[in-house]
């Protein structure tokens, strides 16, 4: 009898564990896995190097897989691709650019990178895009979305050439007027006109009469790439008046030794001041036009 109760308890625990496991692990999805997630090579002119990526279908759907070679451009929001530059140096071997993968099935994609004879820059960033879209029948009712996945595998090539660290601020925008709790965007359009990757650090120092704030900056720009850096600042309840916003962007390939600086002025109007002004205006209008208040407060002496 006791052993029967024990067995039931064990079965119940196993059942709960199974339910918990199922609630954690995703089901009915499209998924891709690849190793390694990036490549870094140093090449001499005309040198060729070979590489390979293992790709696996980790979802529950049959996938139509397409492999593309691109030049990679990115900023804090967007990933963009081009067919120029390093994209032309990469070759996907054995014509394996389109194939099917069943759930659990793997495939090795081989490629080679050949540096050009004439080298224009030191750091070049390409990528292999491995896209898997489910081969599933369309639902004939309603508005439906078929969801696929894509792995972006960067191929970063360092080439012998002049190391020029140069970042140019094309333009920048800062908010002029902000209300309390209203986020403001600081937008910096940068162009790497040097020959190497520019690691960026820095901050925006926002100083007012009674308070000061620091917004950290972090990012990186590839050579010949444009980068839109967007940072946000939201004034708090106690912030009001004129604020100076001094931006310092330090950059360099390894050590951030070069600097870009900007200066802006922001007027912060606090919400409590707006409410006071509106109340004052209403009271002034009512007194001027002899309008009696619908609310009466009577203070009696005892």
């Amino acid at each position, binding site marked *: 009898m006791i052993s029967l109760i024990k067995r039931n308890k064990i079965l119940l625990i196993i059942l709960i564990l199974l339910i918990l496991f199922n609630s954690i692990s995703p089901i009915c999805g499209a998924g891709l896995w690849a190793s390694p997630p*990036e490549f870094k090579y140093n090449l001499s002119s005309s040198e060729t190097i070979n590489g390979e990526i293992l790709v696996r279908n980790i979802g529950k759907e049959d996938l139509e897989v397409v492999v593309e070679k691109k030049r990679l451009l990115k900023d804090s929001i967007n990933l963009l691709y081009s067919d120029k530059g390093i994209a032309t140096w990469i070759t996907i071997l054995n014509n394996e650019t389109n194939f099917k993968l069943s759930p659990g099935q793997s495939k090795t994609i081989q490629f080679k990178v050949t540096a050009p004879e004439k080298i224009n820059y030191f750091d070049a960033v390409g990528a292999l895009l491995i896209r898997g879209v489910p081969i599933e029948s369309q639902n004939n009712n309603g508005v439906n*979305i078929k969801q696929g*996945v894509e792995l*972006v595998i960067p191929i970063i090539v360092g080439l012998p050439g002049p190391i020029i660290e140069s970042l140019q601020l094309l333009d920048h925008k800062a908010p002029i007027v902000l209300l309390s709790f209203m986020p403001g965007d600081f937008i910096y359009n940068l162009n790497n006109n040097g020959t190497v990757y520019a690691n960026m650090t820095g901050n925006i120092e926002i100083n007012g009469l009674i308070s000061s704030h620091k917004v950290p900056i972090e990012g990186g720009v590839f050579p010949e790439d444009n980068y839109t850096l967007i940072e946000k600042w939201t004034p708090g309840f106690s912030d009001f008046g004129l604020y100076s916003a001094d931006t310092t962007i330090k950059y360099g390939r390894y050590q951030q030794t070069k600097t870009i600086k900007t200066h802006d002025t922001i007027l912060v109007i606090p919400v409590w001041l707006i409410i006071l002004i509106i109340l004052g205006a209403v009271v002034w209008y009512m007194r001027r036009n002899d309008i009696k208040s619908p609310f009466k407060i009577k203070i009696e002496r005892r």
Partner: protein
Amino acid sequence: MIMLGENMKQKILGIIPLMVVMLFVAFLAVGDNQTYANPVNQQVTVTVPQAIAISVETPISFGSVPAGTNYAVTPEYWISNNGNVKIDVYVKAGSTEFTSPTATDTIAIDTNYYIKNYNSGNFQQVTTTDQMIYNNMNKASQGSGTPTVWNGAQQRLNVPAYTEDGAYSITMIYSATKHN
């Protein structure tokens, strides 16, 4: 000159291999003792290969949406990181409009189709180029391999008034790249 008998020669020839074996054993023993006498730090290195992975629930549906409806939303769905590196997740539409196999109308994605951004919590316009919706998604758990899952992904759609009835569809692609 010492003359050795045939018997003696055979004995010496028999001893030589024995001496060689004894010397070899002694050499090993000395070498072994030296190891104990002068301990050195042995550095052991191991390289764990990196792997990137992403999964997403599919298919998802807005269900039946009457023409002229604004802010129709999908049920919340999941996106997960099943690899051992942190990732940034981007999204793009496979085309500029929802199309139907039966209706001649289409639903343009511009100003009609939005997706939730994990970091801001707001809906952002879907375009045909990759735009980030999740910055720095954590890797799968060490040991258990339990993926990091975002269960709150959602899409929003406006269906213009007088859109022809029918089933409409589009393909969405979720891109993952290693977070640096």
